[in-house]
Structures are given as C-alpha cells and as structure tokens.
C-alpha cells in the first residue's frame, strides 16, 4: 500500500467499512452475553460463554484453568472478565505454539492447584465456592501452597501473566473476545493513524474494535504461532 497517506488509501477505506461491520457484530455479541438490565454475573450464570474445542489441555485441566482465570479477572457488576475474554482459550491455544515450552508447567501446575484445593478445602478447584477459590489462589500466589515444582508463586506469576495476555492481547490470538478486555480498560483500539485531536487530554476516542489483522495491510501476513515469550515487556530502548 502507499506509504504516503495510509488514512486516504483505498485499502483503509475498505477497512474502515469492514471495521464498522465488525464493531456492530461485536456489539451484538456483547448484548447476547450481557442482556440490558441484567447484572453481568447473573448473565454469566444464565448463559456461560461458549467454549472452543480444546487444542492442548485435557478437559479436567481446562476446567481448572477456566475456574482460575475466572477468579483472577472476575466477571462482576462492572462487566466482563477473563471468562468472556476467553483467556483460557488463548492459553490452551498458545500452549500449542508460542507458549509450547510451558506445557509441562501448566499440566503440573493445574494438577497441583486441584490437589491443593482437595487437600485444603475438600473438593477440586472448579467445585469450590468463590471465597474458597480465592483462598486457594492466595496461597498459590504467596508461595505457601505445597506440591509445586519451583514453588507455587512462580506458577501463579506465569498464569497471571498469560491471563493478562489472553484478556488484553490482540483477539487474533484467541483471547480478548469481542474486545471485552480493551473495553474494560478503555483502550480505544488499534488504529493505523491517529490525529492530533485524538491525543488531547479530554479527547473521547471511539473504540475501533478491530484486530491488527482485520486491517488488510496485515491480514496477508498473519503471525505463525511459533515464537518466544518474555515474562515482561522490557522497558527502555
């Protein structure tokens, strides 16, 4: 595409059109999950987010993972959480690609969470109430839960890190479905060009609700799933 002015290229006009459709689609999907007037948590109970076919984890592992991420970023009166974002799906998929090196750690860590839940609270993690689940996760975070190779805190940190990726990363990777993560924090979305007005202190910038790969410039070069993963976004350059 022309490097002169992407905002005026034909490609972008078409993309903008597609973006409009995409945004409307996202709105419909959100309305399905959260009917107007109903509390989000209530809606969640009535209509759990559809799960995708598993790619790497077993059903038991996936159930534990779903239950964990639902406590890390809970669905509540303020709106959608990691469940609706499909953070667990992001992790399940990434464990077959960019995060493949962490597969064994996940299998062992999720089993250890379940074992600790049974030992300390008398039931597998997914069957515990929210307060008990939070108590279990707090112990895992504080490195006081037994049975984790390398310590439970390290597993917790990794899990939280990947849950954030799956909730706030580009939807292309299987999480942040319907842009619920970006809407939660008010991120106005991927744009290929930003105006001076959109950088004013009090600017109200409408969300684009587009993945990077919804733009035709990038849709032809979607990333492979292979790749490394850093624990942190390194600061400084």
């Amino acid at each position, binding site marked *: 595409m022309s*490097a002169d002015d992407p905002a005026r290229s034909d490609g972008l006009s078409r993309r903008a059109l597609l973006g409009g459709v995409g945004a409307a689609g996202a709105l419909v999907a959100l309305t399905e999950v959260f009917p107007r007037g109903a509390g989000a948590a209530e809606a969640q109970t009535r209509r759990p987010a559809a799960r995708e076919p598993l790619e790497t984890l077993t059903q038991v592992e996936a159930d534990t993972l779903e239950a964990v991420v639902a406590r*890390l970023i809970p669905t*509540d009166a303020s709106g959608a959480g990691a469940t609706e974002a499909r953070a667990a799906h992001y992790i399940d998929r990434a464990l077959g690609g960019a995060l493949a090196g962490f597969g064994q750690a996940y299998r062992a860590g999720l089993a250890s969470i379940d074992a600790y839940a049974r030992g300390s609270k008398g039931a597998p993690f997914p069957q515990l109430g929210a307060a008990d689940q939070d108590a279990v996760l707090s112990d895992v975070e504080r490195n006081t839960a037994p049975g984790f190779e390398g310590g439970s805190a390290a597993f917790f940190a990794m899990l939280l890190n990947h849950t954030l990726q799956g909730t*706030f990363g580009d939807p292309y990777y299987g999480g942040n479905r319907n842009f619920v993560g970006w809407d939660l924090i008010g991120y106005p979305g991927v744009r290929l060009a930003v105006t001076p007005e959109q950088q004013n202190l009090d600017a109200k910038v409408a969300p684009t609700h587009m993945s990077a790969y919804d733009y035709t410039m*990038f849709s032809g070069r979607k990333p492979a799933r292979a790749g490394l993963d850093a624990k942190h*976004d390194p600061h400084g350059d």
Partner: protein
Amino acid sequence: MATELRRADVVIVGLGATGGVAALPLAQAGLDVVGLEAGTWLAPADLSPDELRNNFRGWPQSVQKANREVPTHRPNASAPYSPRPAIHPMMNAVGGTTLHYWAQSWRLNPWDFKVVSETRRRYGASKLPKGTTVEDWPLGLEELEPYYDRVEVEIGVSGQAGNVKGAIDPRGNIFEGRRTRPYPMPPLRGTGYTEMMAGAARSLGWHPFPGPAAITSSRYEGRSGCVYHGFCNRGGCHVSAKGSTAVTTIPKAQRTKRLTVVTEAHVTSIDVDAQGRVRGVSYRKGAEEFFQPASAVLLASYTYENVRLLLLSTSKAFPKGLANNHGQVGRHYFSHNQIATVNALFPRNLNTWYGLPAQGIAVDDWADDNFDHGALDFIGGGNLWVYSDRRPIVAANMSTFGRAPRWGAQWKAFIRENADRGNTAYLQRTTLPYEDNYLDLDPEVKDPLGFPVCRITADYKENERRLADFIQDKMVQWYRAAGALATEKTPVGTMGPTTHAYGGTRMGDNPETNVVDRWGFSHEVANLGVLGASVMGTSGARNPTLTAQALAWRTAEHLAANWKSIAG
C-alpha cells in the same frame, strides 16, 4: 569446505544501525561493499501493530539468531548467574534493531567526551569514582558534529535545536552543544499530556523541550510523516516514518550499485593472514559455508556480538581473539543506568494510549554536569523523559501503587478506573566503566552451532546508585508538580543484557587500554574497523544510537579517504 567468493573491497558484518549507515559513504566513494546480515528484509506488512508479537514474543517474524545467543549475566565474578532472559534485546533483519527502536536520536553533550578532565578541573581528581577506568574520548563533540549533522539528514531526524552556532534557543535544549544548523525537520508534535508535563517543568524553573527522534514529523524524502499509532515501541513502522537504515541509508547505498546485501548470512569468524591482517569473513547461509575475502572488514553486529566474534576469531597471530593481544576486548563494558524509574498515578485520564516513546518532553537540567556536584557524592546526571505511549497488556500490568492487590475484583476495579491514569518516566543516566565490569565467553552456555555465548560480568556501582536515587527524586518532584496523586521509585536493577550496551572494544589513543584508535580501527589490525556503541567510552545520559551512527559514518569516511594506507 567453504566456498570462496569473489573478493570485495569492504565487508560489513551486520546491516543494522551502524553497518547500515557505514555502507553509504563507502558505496558513494566507489568501493565494492558486501553487507552480511544474519536476518532478512522485512516488509511494512511484517510490522503489524501487535503487542504480543512485538513486545512479548521476540519478533518471530525475524531470523531468530540473536534470541539463540542471549548473553549470560552475573553481577560479579563470584555471584550466581542471573536468570537468562528468553529474548535478546536486539534482533536480526536488514536495518537491525533500528526497525523497532524508539528512535530517540540524541547528540551527546560536550561534557560526555571529557568526563575525566572536566571532573578534575571542576572538582578535583578525587571526585572520580574508585575503580572506574573511564578516559576522555580521543575526540570532542566539535569533531563529531559534522557526522552527527550528516546522519541526521540521511536518516531524517526531527527535533528542536537549542544551540545553533552558539545562539541559544529556549524552545530546544539550552544545554545542547553547538550545532551548525537546525534539525532537518521540526520536532514531533506534542500531546495534551506532554504539554501538561512541559508546563509543570516550567513551573519548577526547569527547561523542558521536545526530544529529537529519527522519525519524520512531516513528509521527508519520499517517506510519510509519523502516524502516531502507538505501536512504535518495539514495533516497526508500517509507513516507514521511522528512519531505520532499512528504509534510508541501505537502499540509498544499493542505488549506487556498489552495495551487495547478503541476507541470512551467519558470520562465524573474521579471518587473518600470516601477517595478522584481516583477509575476510567466514559465514554460513543455511547449511552452506562461505568465505568472503575483503581488503577491509567493518565489524558492526552489536556490542555483545562484536566482542564475541573477536574472541571467537582466534589465530596464531591472535591466540586470545582478534585484536586482543592487549587483553582489552570485552573490557570497559557498561550498560546504561536506566532501569530505575518512577511510576506516577494521576487523578485524571491522560489519554496516552497513542503516540510513541519518542513523542515526549525532556528535561536536561539534571543531566551530565549541567548542575553543581560540589556537595553531591557522585558525578554525572540524568535526562528526564516523559512520553505518550501505552499498549493494553502493559497497561493492565501497571503498578497498583499499593492501592489494590494484583488480581481479583478489587484489582479489576482499580485497573478499570486507572489504566489511563498511570505513567512511567524514562530516566537515562551517566554510567561509567569499571575494572571489574567486563564481557567474555561463557564457559558453559553455547549457541546452536556450538560456539560459546557472550557472558556479562557487571553491576552498577555506588556512583550509579546514588545518581539513580537523585534523578528519581527529581522525577518525583516533576510528577508531583504536574498533579500526580502517587509516585513510586523502582529499583536500580543490575547490568543484564540490554539495548544500551557500551564498551568492550573501546576507542582511545592508548593501545594498552583501548581496542580501536580514534578512527575506529583496531590498534593491532590496521584493516579491521569496529562500529557501534562498543567503541564508546562514556554513555552520556541519552540514547546511544545516533552517536554510534555518527562514529560509523566517520570510520567509513576515514577508510574511503585513506584506502591505500589502510587496505592496500
């Protein structure tokens, strides 16, 4: 058996920030140049606004050589090794890390070239920190100025001059060294947030100014102006507004028909003849081995790889590694004292979701020797930098300032309210070389070809720690003046692998303490030049790339001008 290729005049190892610049004056002088690059060309469509790929996954779209050679680190020779990061801070491609760097393109300030003599003159010799091996540079700012100027024009730097021919302009940096002319383009535009911070700095009596960047603020030589889309930070530029050498000096050099770019060329050694002169470079491309003969070699990979390749290139003439008969390769290493920063929480949204790390406001009042250190227990200073740049995953990772846990409903409520209210400064500070901070080869960890990776043995010393604390306090003061509710200082960290790695092949007149001479050529091997921040003996308080590029141009021009005596 390696295939021997047709002889070139000059081989450049690495077509990144410095090799990509050096190619141009050599090609323009009519020399036949071969550029060996481990990576490939990347197209604008490879440079997607994708935070996961750019900021977390080590650029899987590029050749993964650097990621398989991450240096090991230990703070000192008897300390345990630090955890080894999965990702190298630099990457492989034509253009190298200039494809995704922040592109802040500073000239050093005059003091940075004369740290020893200026400290002695103003405070006495005892003010120099114990154990430092710092020397004055063999050249001053005035000698480098024409090369800064040339590179600023070639790669396209935007900025506000503060000192043109001695006339101070308070819109720019009043502490800047003398320039012969303004920047080729005006500075990148301000934002609501950066203007708010500039006002706060002025209220303190400080001198804020927009920093320089190798990013187009307007259309420049056929390249688009910056679009401020917010993925510049370790993302490439899809409109080529970032002045990467891949879109500036390298294609320009190719148009002379004198530069041959060889991609996916993994250099394994620099080879010498019986007289100890460089005769060429060995590299692998896939399973094939090649030998590229050349009359001169410019080593331009990166600080860690420059040192590693020299140490790996052993021979009868250089048993401890090429150009290392004085044992100086790997010495005088330091990385920028830039980890300790300040986070701030504001009572209002800042709208910093878009922009770029180079779209910001600097304060140099506390940099270098711009203030009196008489009553202070350190030398040097820091550049304070705030900017408009934030992506969603890193936003969700923001500090909660002790006001919320790291997960759960309370965290969610905090992040929902404050994701656009947090800000983190970028504080770059003077860093010095010391006796016991150095690079060598790791005795155990190897790359996939079986060669040892680079090992860093280095840590910040008292001068860096005191300075970090002082500069953080200034930043806290600035944020508070702008209305921040809360601030927090982050730890100083240690000298692990970084994008600001200096030294290891230091430049200086004395061959006993320096690897290269004042022109960037080895004291021991006349036809071997070294490019990059590995030749720099001081850091300054600002990003190194433009200085490394100006030095690269100067080295290349010197080679072309003295071709017979150096290469003949």
